[in-house]
């Protein structure tokens, strides 16, 4: 259990828990960007941040399980999916900007033209 800062700081410094805390905070910041910002491109960057947080957690677990190379394969697949998501997502943002002249997700709330 938590017994003050003196007990936490040594585990933070390069331990498994330290990497997981960084991953969790990165995920929280990405989620906050998606929820709080209205510009689609900012929300998109928030999603990228959340994907990166998942990668940090995945590779941290791989290192503490003795350098498992399966995790690298999954990391490659995550990167491939992130690249696809970037291409299609940005194409959709450009399409929205052409039709509505905005990149604000609040202004694109109706399905009708």
């Amino acid at each position, binding site marked *: 259990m938590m017994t003050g800062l003196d007990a936490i700081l040594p585990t933070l*410094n390069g331990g498994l828990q330290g990497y997981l805390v960084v991953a969790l905070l990165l995920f929280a910041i*990405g989620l906050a960007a998606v929820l709080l*910002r209205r*510009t689609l491109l900012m929300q998109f960057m928030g999603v990228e941040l959340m994907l990166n947080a998942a990668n*940090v957690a995945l590779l941290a677990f791989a290192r503490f399980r003795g350098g498992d190379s399966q995790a690298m394969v999954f990391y490659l697949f995550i990167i491939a999916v*992130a690249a696809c998501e970037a291409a299609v997502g940005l194409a959709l943002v450009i399409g929205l900007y052409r039709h509505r002249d905005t990149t604000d997700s609040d202004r694109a709330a109706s399905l009708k033209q």
Partner: protein
Amino acid sequence: MFITFALITLLSALGMLLQKNIIVAGLFMVGAFFGVAGLFVLLANPVAAALQIIVYTGAIMVLVLFVIMMLNSHEEEKAQSPRAIQRWLSIAVVAALAVGAVKLVFASPGLKALAIRGAAMPEAMTLQKVGLTLFADHVLGFEVAGLLLLAAMIGAVALTKRNL
């Protein structure tokens, strides 16, 4: 070293969240990705660090910055409706999630055991090991990923082209 890269990552991400200008926010994202690449080096995984820099900062963020500059809308537009309640609610939810999850990480005995068991630094990940695992056990997944990339490319062209 860990604290340095962790701070680079988290402060850059925080700067991205709070920045009004989208281009500057994109550059903060590049900083965050470099911090994550540093963390990967500390995790004995130079392959992942190189891929992180090549794919995320070299390809994805360049694409995003390219679109930002093309669209010519660098500042966040004025809110149509303020939605103050939703904003405060989402801040509260994100903060509760972060604090709860961090508490859980420190309270978990399983994680503590794993951290002690795997404390010895493993051999650094090499491209050879990754390639052997990828092509021995995951050939089908590799092919599907290639197909997915092709489909995304065709989809992006179809979505942005004015008239096919």
